[in-house]
């Protein structure tokens, strides 16, 4: 069972929902896929036991073989190569590591070398198998890290993927092929606007989904109206609660200070199970 927790808008409470869901269930694996700014570790406090370097292959040119035919430059979909007077110039941060240039080079002048772009850390957090991806500062591409993180998914467990915000490539990479996606939103015009984008994305990807409304007693009722009109299940509504906010600021999950909340999250999990099996 693989469940992603995503949102359109940032700051709606993805990590809050994902962490508390994880703490409310048994046999959980948690993947923080928000590799540009992972923060679930603040709440789950894992003991990191394993570190895996994430690399992408970038081309290396043998100048003695290169005839400057420009085929590699023309084939690069990411414009990472430029042919100057008599030298190929590589822009490593534009390179997606697809290997196309090496494939197309008629002179076999291209080999590949690994460039490290980030790290994956793994270790236990209580009973949870915790994994987080960390993209190096200044690196533009998050997806190779998420792709490698996903290879560590243990299908014997309930796998919770804490997705990055938005609807761009890193989100797609996190949510693809999941059994279910929880979309966390807030009942504000901003929340609704970005929720609609996230809903469009889920429908395009054919991933079943439901909505959690965080801080459900602020803002207005438009998110709920939208969900009703669009036949989208509202899995959980969490009213604003100062003690949860205070605990959050200390790095303590809501379910730790209000253990009864685990029942709500467990109920939500059961709702999700019925949605998937239906």
């Amino acid at each position, binding site marked *: 069972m693989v469940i992603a927790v995503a949102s359109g808008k940032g700051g709606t409470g993805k990590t809050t929902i994902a962490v508390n869901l994880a703490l409310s269930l048994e046999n959980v694996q948690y993947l923080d896929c928000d590799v540009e700014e992972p923060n679930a570790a603040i709440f789950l406090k894992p003991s990191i036991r394993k570190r895996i370097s994430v690399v992408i292959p970038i081309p290396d040119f043998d100048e003695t073989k290169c005839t400057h035919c420009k085929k590699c430059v023309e084939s690069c*979909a990411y*414009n*990472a190569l*430029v042919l*100057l007077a008599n030298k190929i110039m590589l*822009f490593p941060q*534009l390179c997606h590591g697809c290997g196309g240039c090496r494939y197309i080079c008629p002179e076999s002048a291209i080999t590949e070398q690994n460039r490290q772009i980030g790290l994956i850390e793994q270790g236990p957090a209580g009973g949870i198998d915790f994994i987080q991806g960390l993209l190096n500062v200044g690196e533009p591409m998050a997806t190779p890290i998420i792709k490698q993180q996903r290879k560590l998914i243990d299908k014997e467990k309930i796998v919770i993927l804490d997705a990055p915000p938005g609807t761009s490539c890193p989100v797609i990479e996190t949510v693809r092929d999941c059994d279910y996606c929880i979309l966390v939103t807030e009942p504000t015009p901003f929340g609704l606007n970005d929720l609609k984008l996230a809903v469009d994305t889920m429908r395009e990807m054919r991933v079943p989904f439901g909505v959690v409304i965080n801080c459900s007693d602020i803002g207005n009722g438009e998110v709920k109206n939208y969900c009703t009109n669009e036949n989208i299940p509202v899995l959980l509504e969490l009213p604003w609660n100062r003690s949860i906010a205070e605990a959050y600021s200390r790095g303590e999950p809501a379910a730790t200070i209000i253990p009864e909340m685990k029942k709500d999250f467990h109920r939500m999990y059961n709702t999700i199970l019925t949605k998937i099996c239906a």
Partner: protein
Amino acid sequence: MNVCISSTGKDLSAPVDPRFGRAQLFLFVDTETMEYECIANPAITAGGGAGTKAAQLVADKGAQAVLTGNVGPNAFSALSAAGVKIYAGMTDTARQAVEKFKTGQVPPVSGPSAGAHSGMGGR
């Protein structure tokens, strides 16, 4: 001298396009005769790397200078490595940019004048 101007129109009376990588058109101008060639920017719809792709065109056409509004980090690196001098901050028409360049009113830039993705219209 062969100079490249990022342009919003097909002749020298058109305003300079403030973007380099995402410029609409490029005018390659012979500064002695003021004869020019207009080429559509192949990088305008690039998913990424518009700056490097546009710089490749400039290098291929053998221009020795670029006159534009702003140039980003990748385009700056590629053009510099190709030995192309970059004159940023150009406004008004392409013809006026050439005049400014010829009379030495603007010094070449020593670094990128805009961040990555600046020509993407706030996306």
